[in-house]
């Protein structure tokens, strides 16, 4: 475990424990505590990474491998956006308000644990914590759909833990250690891999199930659609990415796919990635609910990351890391906007919405930015990550994969255009007449994230230097 980043785990945990006591008499204190904790953490991280001397030095003196730091930043950012949004979104009478913020902080803490750990079993522990908090968060508003989503999430992903444990025990049997470093050294050596790759494949399978890759994706749309509105942003933006996709990318780097020692697994991973891209995009085309469409889109985007991870070359890993961060930004924007829609218009059914642009311009235009970034339109950040992934595929000689990835990127654009036309553009409908724009506090996180999308796209060269440094550190 990276001790340098331990504080980012402990402080939210502390806050989470304090909140129920502090908020006993004044419920609002819970919001403030949670927001302050996350904001302070974020500022601290920004100081750590964005000091001029660090930037000038090409991020060379970033602690650890840099990947953790980046993801801790993403976790805190999304967490802050969600808590800030929830503070105004949540109704005042909500009984489980303190518990809600405690759970968010606990999940932030667990995610920090996930991204800073250096051991498979610890990874498993934190991922279980994350999963447990997620179920409770999904059902925050006690709606039928929320409970349904939570239950499906619970039962469809928990068997994955058993697979991970079996993988871990085989790893223990054949490798004798559970640390990442041992596996990396082992894979870099000439020793015949034996059951180690099988163990890794089992662990990978567990994480693939948890990240919602086709054909293990069935829980994803239900959980995202059913979840309490801000929680779906938290869940789609960061939680499932950290609990599944992060581990897949990490394993891909540890297994050194570019060496070809685990070629079968690499090929399987790439196939699953492409399958996810295709199924997610095609299924999203026909959705009628805004959140469900976003969920399918999320599956599709996760497919890109898994595809890149399966390829495993430094360029592809860089693309995967960057896409992971980008996915956190644009999916958070889109899901928070769906929450705004739900609050303002009372529904996320696209058949009932329409012409919302007239009454909710900010929501509409931030959605446009986010969806263009998702679809990979230059110069937004999503373009660069997809470009890196497709370039990596092309360079590796996988022309067919590259072409298909590009094609489904167009399909992404297509379904988002359909969505945008149905929900935001077009003639003013009854729903739009009676739906006012949400207040500034609800818009602030979304606008911040949109600005970040644009900024990451425009300042890509700086980010490229960082991502390159990260990719080199974790691969070499």
């Amino acid at each position: 475990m990276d001790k340098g980043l331990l504080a980012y785990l402990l402080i939210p945990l502390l806050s989470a424990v304090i909140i129920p006591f502090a908020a006993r008499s004044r419920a609002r204190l819970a919001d403030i505590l949670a927001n302050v904790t996350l904001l302070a953490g974020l500022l601290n991280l920004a100081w750590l990474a964005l000091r001029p001397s660090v930037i000038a030095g090409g991020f060379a003196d970033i602690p650890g491998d840099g990947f953790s730091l980046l993801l801790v930043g993403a976790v805190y950012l999304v967490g802050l956006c969600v808590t800030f949004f929830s503070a105004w979104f949540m109704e005042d009478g909500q009984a489980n308000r303190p518990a809600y913020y405690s759970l968010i902080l606990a999940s932030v803490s667990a995610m920090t644990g996930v991204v800073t750990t250096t051991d498979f079993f610890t990874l498993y522990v934190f991922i279980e914590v994350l999963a447990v908090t997620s179920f409770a968060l999904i059902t925050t508003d006690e709606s039928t759909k929320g409970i349904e989503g939570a239950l499906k999430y619970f039962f469809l992903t928990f068997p994955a833990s058993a697979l991970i444990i079996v993988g871990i025990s085989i790893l223990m049997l054949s490798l004798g250690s559970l640390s990442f470093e041992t596996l990396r050294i082992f894979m870099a050596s000439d020793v015949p891999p034996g059951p180690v790759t099988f163990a890794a494949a089992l662990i990978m399978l567990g994480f693939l199930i948890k990240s919602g890759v086709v054909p293990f994706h069935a829980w994803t749309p239900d959980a995202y659609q059913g979840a309490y509105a801000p929680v779906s942003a938290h869940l789609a933006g960061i939680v499932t990415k950290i609990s599944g996709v992060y581990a897949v990318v990490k394993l891909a780097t540890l297994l050194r796919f570019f060496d070809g020692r685990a070629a079968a697994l690499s090929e399987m991973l790439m196939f699953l990635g492409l399958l996810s891209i295709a199924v997610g995009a095609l299924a999203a085309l026909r959705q009628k609910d805004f959140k469900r469409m976003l969920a399918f889109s999320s599956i599709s985007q996760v497919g890109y990351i898994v595809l890149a991870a399966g390829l495993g070359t430094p360029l592809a890993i860089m693309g995967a890391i960057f896409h992971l961060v980008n996915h956190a930004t644009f999916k958070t924007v889109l899901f928070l906007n769906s929450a705004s829609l739900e609050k303002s218009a009372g529904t996320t059914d696209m058949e009932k919405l329409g012409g919302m642009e007239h009454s909710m311009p900010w929501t509409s235009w931030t959605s446009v930015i986010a969806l263009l970034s998702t679809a990979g339109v230059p110069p937004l950040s999503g373009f660069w990550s997809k470009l890196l992934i497709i370039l990596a595929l092309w360079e590796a000689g996988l022309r067919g994969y590259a072409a298909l990835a590009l094609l489904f990127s167009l399909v992404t654009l297509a379904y988002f255009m359909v969505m945008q036309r149905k929900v935001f553009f077009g003639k003013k409908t009854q729903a739009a007449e009676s739906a006012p724009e949400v207040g500034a506090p609800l818009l602030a996180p979304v606008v911040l994230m949109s600005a970040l999308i644009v900024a990451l796209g425009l300042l890509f060269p700086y980010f490229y230097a960082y991502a390159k440094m990260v990719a080199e550190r974790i691969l070499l």
Partner: protein
Amino acid sequence: MSVFAMDWYLIGLLFFVGFYCMLASRSIVRQLIGLEIISKAAMLTVISAGALTANLVLAQALLITMIVIEVVVVAAGLALLVKTFRVNGNADIWRLDSLKG
């Protein structure tokens, strides 16, 4: 056949029973029981692997953590069960199909 292979063969049967239960049962309680069976099987693999490699210390250290996790997970699952029972009046997971499309 070695003891280890026999053990793991029977653990495989346990996995099968657990997964079959999760696939076939409608009741959320029984789903949880299936989950429990699966995680028991997973625990057995850990201890068995530890015993095989004379690494029981590490295996037990892992197992204690796993048991703690299991308790919380089951508690969370049962909490969900109670909640869904309150809201829907039944504990039938097959009837939960309002989210579709």
